């Protein structure tokens, strides 16, 4: 059920021109592995996946060449005409370039389809030159419909404008090769469609506009290049070009639409209360400039709220934005001021799920001086207060060891952990205490201690405890990051909800021994003796501390268990899931794909059984007790299959309109929430608890391919109406189902 990133576009890059002759190009070409080999005439070798673009920090300061001096000195101009020669030459150069570009387009236009690739190179080359200036960009815009129709995108991944995906744009633009310029041309084409200058047969003005808005919202770092990272020496012509493009797009499109998107995106992300908030913080950081532009008041307010939440939310912190100064002012402050601080901190966290570094300073201060304020500062419920009062000493030690401005986000987890009453399970108290002094394995220590933590004297135990507190407080805030390890994230999340003892044991084992063992059908599997894993042994480190410790082990163990079931002729998850996750998983299991043929067989029965076991109207009232790990098809906004994914059904309940919805946990922090066909998982507004997504029951079923069930608790499958089955089948067949054979 690993998420297969098969949406990675296969892109090519021009390396060799095809002039025949000397070397045996024809024969070399033949050996290239790609199936669409003829394209290699102009393109050679595959490209990196787009996703890598997300991870690259490309925030060079925009150094725009001040080509056109705004204030030409008239006197000098009169005396020395040569002095302004620069400006005139540049202007002529651009116009020469435009001429060359247009003539290259003519050649491309006239070429027959099979020969287009020979003429694309020159167009890309000249477009690269033009994209170097604003005038040039404008010329590209003016020619957008012309180059699209001439065949600039012919036979490449950008050919069909209706199949483009906003999340892939940023990654392409940040690549060095020819693809970044093709991507730029594609954006210009969309802008031309969005503005109504170009009537496109496959894409409406509205579609183009919303595509571009999404692209802008997803690439705030290009729209608002941060000012701080100028230190990077590496020349980033392609980054500058991308930033120039975004300036252009930003100026052409209404900022309001984007502002809503950005704020919406930040809200959507925060409402899920993830443990890792770095990306949200950088979005806020970058969007804060927008507050100065002419944007919608509501969006502006919201942005200000978020910005304050991660900086200085309280009166005192706003007044003394230096953290040392702030702490000394706390010492002088009277009771009333401190109460106010506690209250405002809590409110800010409650509203945003984001914690300010000052909040950590405040908590550390009251931990020593005013522990009575703790319930207010942590925004505790009644359960939380009782839990706190029963474990004051442990909480004090946890705060001392692990709550620092650099780990401030764990404060939210701490409060929620207390509210969940985790500490009422007595065996957990020594299990947590054990982590405070655990002898951490040097390798694990290394991966936990980022330079930022080392510099501030935070120990690996401190990081580990902060991470544990976060996971216990926000079980649905666990994310897989950029790793294909949805299984492992789902396991951590499940244990954080229902298997706290097992989770803490695994954390201790992983952190101390750098090993975890599990038993599969009587056979003990040690992670330290395994190689590889779903992620190929390479775990991207942008993870919460607990995931950092556990995922490398869990991933290998899961993979090993799956290997042991390979030849059973049935989906191995049937046996692996109950052993891997634990006894919370029911033994009944159904996958709608026939493992021998790969066909979709007996889809109707699949739907009926799911309704009979899960839908309250058909399952004789048996409630879902523990989360159910299910497999779903991820589809893009057009309903096309992108890959397989693992989520957990958390609960099934009626929403305010009396419609049954499936509430689920999605370990993938994927921002594209539109699955096509009007299926858009919501994260708020339909009764979701924090961290949950939800869909109407039948919509969820239409994307599902495997689930567990309790064979002793089910209703009658024949009671499920044919019309329901037919509707779901229709949705499935016209989306992911198109990639399968149905029998």
């Amino acid at each position, binding site marked *: 059920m690993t998420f297969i990133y098969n949406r990675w576009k296969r*892109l*090519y*890059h*021009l*390396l*060799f*021109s*095809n*002039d*025949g*002759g*000397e*070397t*045996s*190009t*024809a*024969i070399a*070409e*033949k050996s*290239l592995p790609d*199936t*669409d*080999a*003829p*394209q290699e*005439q102009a393109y050679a*070798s*595959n*490209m*990196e996946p787009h996703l890598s673009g997300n991870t690259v920090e490309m925030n060079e300061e925009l150094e725009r060449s001040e080509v056109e001096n705004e204030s030409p000195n008239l006197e000098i101009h009169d005396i020395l005409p040569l002095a302004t020669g620069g400006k005139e030459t540049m202007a002529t*150069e651009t116009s020469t370039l435009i001429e060359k570009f247009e003539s290259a387009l003519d050649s491309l236009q006239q*070429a*027959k*389809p*099979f*020969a287009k*690739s*020979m003429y694309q*190179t*020159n167009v*890309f*080359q*000249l477009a690269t*030159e033009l994209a170097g200036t604003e005038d040039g960009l404008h010329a590209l815009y003016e020619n957008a419909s012309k180059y699209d129709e001439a065949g600039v995108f012919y036979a490449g991944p950008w050919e069909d404008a209706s199949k483009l995906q906003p999340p892939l744009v940023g990654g392409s633009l940040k*690549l*060095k*090769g*020819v693809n970044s310029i093709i991507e730029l041309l594609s954006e210009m084409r969309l802008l031309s469609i969005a503005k109504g200058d170009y009537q496109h047969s496959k894409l409406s003005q509205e579609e183009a506009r919303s595509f571009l808005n999404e692209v802008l919202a997803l690439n705030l770092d290009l729209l608002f290049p941060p000012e701080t990272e100028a230190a990077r020496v*590496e*020349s980033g*012509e392609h980054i500058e070009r991308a930033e120039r493009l975004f300036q252009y797009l930003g100026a052409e499109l209404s900022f309001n639409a984007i502002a809503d998107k950005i704020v919406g995106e930040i809200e959507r992300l925060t409402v899920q209360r993830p443990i890792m908030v770095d990306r949200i913080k950088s979005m806020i950081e970058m969007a804060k400039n927008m507050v100065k532009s002419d944007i919608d008041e509501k969006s502006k307010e919201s942005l200000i709220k978020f910005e304050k939440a991660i900086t200085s939310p309280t009166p005192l912190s706003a007044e003394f934005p230096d953290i040392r100064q702030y702490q000394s002012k706390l010492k002088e402050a009277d009771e009333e001021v401190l109460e106010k601080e506690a209250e405002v901190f809590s409110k800010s966290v409650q509203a945003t799920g984001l914690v300010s570094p000052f909040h950590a300073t405040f908590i550390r201060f009251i931990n020593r001086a005013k522990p009575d304020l703790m319930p207010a500062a942590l925004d505790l419920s009644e359960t939380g207060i009782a839990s706190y009062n029963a474990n004051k000493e442990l909480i004090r030690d946890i705060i001392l060891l692990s709550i620092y401005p650099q780990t401030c986000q764990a404060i939210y987890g701490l409060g929620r952990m207390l509210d969940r009453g985790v500490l009422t399970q007595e065996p957990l108290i020594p299990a947590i205490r054990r982590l405070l002094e655990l002898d951490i394995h040097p390798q694990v220590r290394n991966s936990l201690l980022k330079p930022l933590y080392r510099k501030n004297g935070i120990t690996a135990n401190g990081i580990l405890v902060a991470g544990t507190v976060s996971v216990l407080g926000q079980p649905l805030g666990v994310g897989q990051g950029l790793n294909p390890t949805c299984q492992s994230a789902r396991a951590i999340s499940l244990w954080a909800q229902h298997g706290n003892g097992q989770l803490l044991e695994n954390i201790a084992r992983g952190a101390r021994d750098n090993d975890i063992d599990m038993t599969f059908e009587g056979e003990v599997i040690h992670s330290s003796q395994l190689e590889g894993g779903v992620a190929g042994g390479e775990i991207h480190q942008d993870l919460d501390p607990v995931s950092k410790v556990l995922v490398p082990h869990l991933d290998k163990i899961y993979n090993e268990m799956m290997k042991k079931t390979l030849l059973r002729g049935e989906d191995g998850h049937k046996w692996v899931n109950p052993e891997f996750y634990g006894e919370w998983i029911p033994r009944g299991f159904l996958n709608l794909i026939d493992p021998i043929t790969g066909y979709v067989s007996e889809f109707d029965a699949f739907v009926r059984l799911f309704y009979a076991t899960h839908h309250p109207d058909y399952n004789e009232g048996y409630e879902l007790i523990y989360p159910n790990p299910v497999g779903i098809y991820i589809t893009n906004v057009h309903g096309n299959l992108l890959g397989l994914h693992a989520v957990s059904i958390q609960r099934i309940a009626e929403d305010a309109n009396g419609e049954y919805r499936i509430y689920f946990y999605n370990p993938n922090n994927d921002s594209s929430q539109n699955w096509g066909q009007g299926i858009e998982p919501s994260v708020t507004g339909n009764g979701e608890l924090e961290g949950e997504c939800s869909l109407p029951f039948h919509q969820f079923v239409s994307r599902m391919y495997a689930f567990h069930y309790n064979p002793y608790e089910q209703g009658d499958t024949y009671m499920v109406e044919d019309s329901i089955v037919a509707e779901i089948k229709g949705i499935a067949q016209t989306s992911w189902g198109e990639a399968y054979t149905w029998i």
Partner: protein
Amino acid sequence: MDKSEIQETKLTALLGWSLPAIEAIDKLNKPYVVVGPPDFQEFADKNGIQFVAWDFEQLNERSIELYEKLAALNTKVAVPIYEETVEWAGALNAHFNNDPRIFNRSLLLRDKGLMKRKAQMAGIRVGVFEEAYTKDDVYRFLKRMNEALIKMDGDVNDPIHVKPLNKAGTVGHRLIRDAQDIDLMGDTEFPCLMESHLDGQEFSCEAFIHNGKIQFLNITEYVQLGHSNFIPASPALEEWRPRIREEVQKLVDSFEIKYGVIHPEYFIAADGTLNFGEVAARVPGGHIFELIERAYGFSAFQAQILCSDPDTTEEELQAFFPEEVTSARGYAGSLMVYPKVKLIERLNVPEELKTNPYFEKHDMFIPVTSKVAERVGFGNHYGTIFFFGDDSEKMRSLLKQYEKYDFYL
């Protein structure tokens, strides 16, 4: 001309997959079929290009099969695009014309040992050469060569060249000065051809032959072998055109070449003495065909196709080819760029190049794989810069200047 085109129903077969060649024949409105590696089948089908999948690399006794396939399609002539397809074209054309000798003639062009021997017998000046089967042969040849040059102990050796018998251009070429260089040779490089080093300016000719007669002779001046060249040659070299033409005709006669294009390479000494290097009968490298089109305005691919076809009439050819040298609109040059670094970080195309009036275009991008492939012979270049202007000396100095430039950092 129009009439014959309309009536034409027999196919011309292009051997090897090359888009420029396909485009050229398509524009001639001549019916054609492309014979190429099977991987191109899908593309050909999608674009309505008549295609026969064939693996030229595999040596086999099945040329008759290819002939039968092509004959069934009513093919009359085969045009080789790549070095490896030259003997295939020979075999096919031998069948089409029922003249087995055509095949044997094509073999002369595919075995550099045979080629040199044939040239020598025809009274064409060549260097001293021998085939080598082991490293011992190379040691002995180097030693005997330098003895003949009356070298004493301690004198620097004159180098010799070794190259594969049947590879295009500079592929597998080695310059050998002493025993150490020989040690570097691998066993798979044998047998090979050894030859003495020839001094003088190297250049190539592209002669379009029809019915054994040179219809058009282009001279390509090499500025730096494997890196840069331009068309037409400078006046200093063009001055020798009558001599060169004579030599090329001698080659055509002795090799009994009737139709198509040949691409011989010569060295010319200051006194006009011409030494023959080697000759190929396919599309030359170094973007020479593109340069011909830029300078003279006709498609060299079309010229090759027309000249390969015995049915093309004298009038058609006269109408097709412009006058040599005088009709050129200017000098067209190309510089092939090889990265000088192992890892490519970025592209560095200087403004003064882009604003130079001779600069036309370049096709360099940062490759996706930043690691630079190891070079074989002169290797595959990573990009080409095209120039055009009306002064051959300016052209030469530009090509020299930018050959040293680091475009990839």
